[in-house]
């Protein structure tokens, strides 16, 4: 296999080194490998699978931690305590939940399409875990460095749409049908502005590999691309079915949306997929906009976790505050507001890079001052767009003034209306 791949991937190298030895793994590995000569491919597989194993388990553990932290933090936002009975500070609550769900009866409703019904949670969970493959957690900590990493993330996470539709359609429940129809419409709509918002980053880095994206961030891209950050944030929260875009599983409207009819372990899989995807999205946001694993003093993976949990906190905070939009408003927001905004972002970024960047070997290169300038231009155009939108919204809403009128004395005019 390619030497650069082995050299940059720390965990892989360590394991492969022990198994295959210096003959295959390179000069830095002095010891004789455990595997006989000619069987180094087994070491290659084992090393790969070890990382995958770590990732998949980290994903599930992350989902459990997220469930716990969401319940605790939501409680705190709502002046409640949240779960605190099982274990210290309720830390074992997710385990208790999982045990409970495991022991529950797995109900398949009458008239359900059984194979599809069973397959849906797996189809939901798989892409969420697959996305972790390309995310660098620290310098040298990753499974693989795809040169089309960004594209891979977009493509794989798009599969969730299919799972939602499968779940909603197969279980012969009208609430679920509502949820899945909403879900399909919403996810497809928000894919577009989300992908477009990444284009600005592509312009700046010139590479689709996530490691290159992190390395290109002399200044975190949140400062260079605030508009893209806002769009991406909104887009991800819509992709994740979080408030204010949680129409897919709006519990006050359609019970639980597409997973209304799921119980037991299948429900747990859905939950794990959803909660895990939030962490994965946090990881993507951290990689794209927050300089990935890089940060002073602390080791890379810890910085990475801090950034991911910053995103998670934001998500929970938003969930604790905002009401949800209506179905047509969600679509309208995506097509009428976010998509134009993302196009503006591409234009503004492209233009400013074109003007500010200096040609070097056929590539435009920007130094830090230039990057900050790009960011300032970006921010200004974002604010301009918001003001413009506010202006349009104001003129659209009828009245627009405060409507409550106080009637001090009993008004005979009121009686006139009555007669």
């Amino acid at each position, binding site marked *: 296999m390619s030497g650069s791949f082995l050299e940059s991937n720390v965990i892989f190298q360590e394991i492969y080194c022990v198994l295959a030895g210096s003959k295959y793994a390179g000069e830095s590995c002095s010891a004789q490998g455990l595997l006989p000569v000619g069987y180094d491919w087994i070491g290659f597989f084992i090393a790969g699978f070890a990382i995958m194993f770590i990732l998949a388990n980290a994903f599930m553990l992350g989902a459990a931690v997220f469930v716990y932290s969401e319940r605790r933090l939501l409680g705190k936002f709502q002046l409640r305590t949240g779960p605190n009975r099982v274990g*210290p500070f309720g830390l074992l609550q997710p385990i208790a939940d999982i045990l409970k769900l495991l022991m529950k009866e797995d109900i398949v409703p009458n008239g359900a399409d059984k194979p599809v019904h069973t397959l849906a949670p797996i189809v939901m969970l798989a892409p969420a875990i697959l996305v972790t493959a390309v995310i660098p957690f620290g310098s040298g900590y990753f499974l693989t460095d795809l040169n089309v990493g960004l594209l891979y993330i977009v493509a794989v996470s798009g599969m969730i749409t299919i799972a939602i539709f499968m779940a909603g359609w197969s279980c012969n429940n009208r609430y679920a049908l509502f949820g899945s129809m909403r879900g399909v419409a919403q996810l497809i709509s928000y894919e577009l502005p989300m992908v477009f918002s990444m284009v600005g980053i592509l312009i700046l880095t010139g590479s689709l590999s996530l490691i290159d994206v992190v390395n290109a961030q002399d200044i975190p891209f949140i400062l260079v691309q605030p508009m893209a950050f806002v769009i991406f944030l909104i887009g991800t929260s819509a992709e994740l079915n979080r408030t204010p875009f949680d129409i897919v599983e709006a519990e006050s409207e359609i019970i639980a949306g597409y997973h209304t009819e799921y119980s037991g372990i299948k429900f747990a899989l859905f939950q794990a997929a959803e909660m895990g995807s939030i962490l994965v999205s946090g990881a993507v946001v951290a990689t794209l906009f927050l300089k990935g694993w890089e940060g002073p003093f602390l080791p890379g993976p810890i910085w990475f976790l801090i950034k991911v949990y910053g995103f998670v906190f934001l998500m929970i905070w938003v969930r604790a505050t905002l009401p949800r939009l209506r179905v047509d408003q969600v679509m309208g927001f995506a097509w009428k507001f976010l998509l134009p905004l993302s196009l503006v972002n591409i234009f503004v970024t492209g233009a400013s890079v074109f003007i500010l960047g200096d040609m070097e070997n056929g590539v435009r290169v920007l130094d830090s001052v230039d990057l900050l300038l790009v960011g300032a231009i970006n921010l200004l155009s974002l604010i301009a767009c918001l003001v413009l939108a506010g202006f349009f919204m104001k003129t659209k809403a009828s009245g627009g003034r405060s409507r409550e009128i106080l009637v001090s004395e009993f008004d005979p005019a009121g009686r006139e209306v009555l007669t």
Partner: protein
Amino acid sequence: MTYGLGLFKGMLVTLRNFFRPVVTVQYPDRRVGIFYLAKKANISVIRFLLESPRESVKSLLGLVRVPVYVEQNPRFRGEEFTWYEDRCTGCASCAKYCPLGIIRIETHESGEYLQEGQSYFVDTFDIDIGRCMFCGICVEACPYDALFMGTGFERGRYQRSELVIPIEELKAASKRPSTWFRPQLESQKFDPWKSEADWETVGREAYKWHPKRPAQSGNPNQEDQVKE
């Protein structure tokens, strides 16, 4: 106005509340950490760790509980009525005024004390707590201040029949009457959560006017006659 400003205002409000203390109270107990235990023992956390490692580990694992006790108002209308056998004449006003008719009273004539007709011995005094709605009208109706609302609120049972409070239980129960509709208790600043009240002190008037005053002091009617 910028679009989205209202959203941020709301977010700030929730963030402010995030740092406010929790208002909910845990019931019936809550888990305490090592800091609480150390503070209770009045020593520093490190000393507590060294002195009682077992307790410390337990508290760190979330196994130490302390019961939580929230005081209700003295007027709280709770279950397990406080009933004073010595005051009750068996008049059954309570049973008659109860909107649900869930008090069952059986009496026999005593013939001992003569007071406005006759006083009765109460044989049965059952309250079916399972159907009671704690409206307190029975207490309001009792003319001799013999029945009081209780102060309890923990009476989960597996069977409805266990929810009928028989006379023995009423007799044996600790006398912690609620001050509901009993201004005399309120003016004494009686607090059922702190102390008990015996039958002599809970009446509207001095106990000597009560028909069931202990025999050695004589019958109030007789006393009046003696005075005259």
